């Protein structure tokens, strides 16, 4: 027998008996951030490819999801802070070794870019929109002139935001489940698939829907590949990471991970996407909603399970 017990009675709130410092706002934000990143990535990409008129939903309409998602996500992050009055301290420094620091700056850039992008396309939603003030009109003309630059900024920062949502977690070596570099690309893929799903849900153009269904299927396949890769890495690693993997391989998060994230969130929509591409008619909202749901569950499962995983101690 070997057993370790704290005998002096330590009951630090949110730390004991098991770490639970991050609650629902964090996974919710990670999902919304990933979704916004996915949506803005496709908008910028297809604009830069000169397909603005072909894929109207992707470039002009669905990006309106992003500012809402980002603002709600930021509000969730703010709500989660324990020392809220000092949140501005984030913006008095840039610390490159802290993902949360450069992530905060990235969010500032991508949120601003998403607002500008939507302002440039406001007439898609409100055809008779008038900016009323002259300086706003001039601002619109100015940004229209530099729209290409804006698209590049959006493209790059969308990728950084998508990767950041994963790196935020993978930087913590104290939580073995999070401490894998696959998490960056995995969260990016999950965000991109959510973005593609949102476009499929919103698009009324069959050609556009088929393109994003195909993209969604490819990204879901990549996600599955990365998940397998992650488990291979864990199982070939140290005892703490083997234990971390076992949270999903027989441990307390097994059911919720494999059923909600992998089967309902990745495999089923992937197969439905394939059937749609093979000519069967599948209502677009089924795979779309499943992918978004799976993406959200993925964040919840990962944030909560990661806090359970720890060093032998």
């Amino acid at each position, binding site marked *: *027998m*070997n*057993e*370790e*017990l*704290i*005998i*002096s*009675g*330590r*009951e*630090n*709130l*949110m*730390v*004991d008996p098991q*770490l639970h*410092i*991050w609650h629902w706002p964090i996974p919710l934000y990670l999902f919304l951030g990933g979704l916004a990143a996915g949506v803005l990535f496709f908008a910028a990409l297809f604009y830069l490819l000169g397909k603005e008129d072909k894929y109207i939903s992707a470039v002009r309409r669905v990006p309106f999801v992003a500012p809402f998602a980002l603002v709600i996500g930021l509000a969730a992050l703010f709500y*989660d*802070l*324990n*020392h*809220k*009055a*000092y*949140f501005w*301290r*984030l913006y*008095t*420094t840039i*610390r490159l*070794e*802290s*993902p*949360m*620091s450069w*992530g*905060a700056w990235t969010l500032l850039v991508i949120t601003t870019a998403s607002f500008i992008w939507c302002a440039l396309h406001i007439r898609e939603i409100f055809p008779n929109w008038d900016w009323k003030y002259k300086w706003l009109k001039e601002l619109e003309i100015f940004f229209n002139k530099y729209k290409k630059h804006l698209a590049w900024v959006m493209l790059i920062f969308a990728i950084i935001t998508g990767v950041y949502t994963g790196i935020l977690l993978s*930087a*913590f*070596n*104290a*939580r073995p489940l999070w401490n894998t570099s696959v998490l960056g690309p995995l969260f990016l893929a999950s965000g991109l698939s959510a973005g593609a799903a949102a476009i499929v849900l919103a698009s009324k153009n069959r050609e556009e829907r088929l393109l994003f269904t195909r993209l969604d299927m490819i990204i879901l396949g990549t996600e599955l590949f990365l998940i397998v890769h992650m488990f291979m890495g864990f199982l070939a690693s*140290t005892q703490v990471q083997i234990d971390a993997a076992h949270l999903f391989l027989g441990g307390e998060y097994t059911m919720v991970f494999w059923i909600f994230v992998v089967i309902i969130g990745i495999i089923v929509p992937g197969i439905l996407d394939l059937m749609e591409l093979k000519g069967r008619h599948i209502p677009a909202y089924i795979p779309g909603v499943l992918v978004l749901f799976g993406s959200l569950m993925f964040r919840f499962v990962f944030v909560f399970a990661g*806090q359970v995983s*720890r*060093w*032998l*101690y």
Partner: protein
Amino acid sequence: MRYAMAVDTKKCVGCSDCVVACQTENDVPIGFCRDWVVERMDGTYPQLEVELRSERCNHCDNAPCVRCCPTGASHIVDGGIVVVSHNKCIGCGACIASCPYDARYPHPKGYVDKCTFCLHRVREGMKPACVAVCPTKCMYFGDLDDPNSDVSLVLKKRKYKTLIPEAGTKPQLYFLI
């Protein structure tokens, strides 16, 4: 200068005086603690071996909490002591998640709190409260760079270990075994 602490697991009786001393000295809010005592039991009855450890922040040389802090609130001061500036901490919890020793906790006032090696006492030339109060004198504190400090002398004489060195944090809390 490199402050460190050594705890003699053979002398510790697990009385938890160090915990109470810390709570009193540092006005730790009720229900929280910056240090704690761990009992490790090995073997099968009646062949049992017990190890008692008074634990706290390890004031790591490679501190993950300082690395991940987005505002620089967690930082290193004299002699490698890791402290948190209350007026810079936003209470995001990153440092709490990053600590493999779970040595930090969110203070009810919002900022993150932890052991400071009693920096205010150390700067006055005194020992940390836990060390000063220990009835079995099982704790040693001092400067590792000074070969004649309590901690340097005892680490020269005795076998010791650190906790989870494989986490790469280079902890500075030594346990004499």
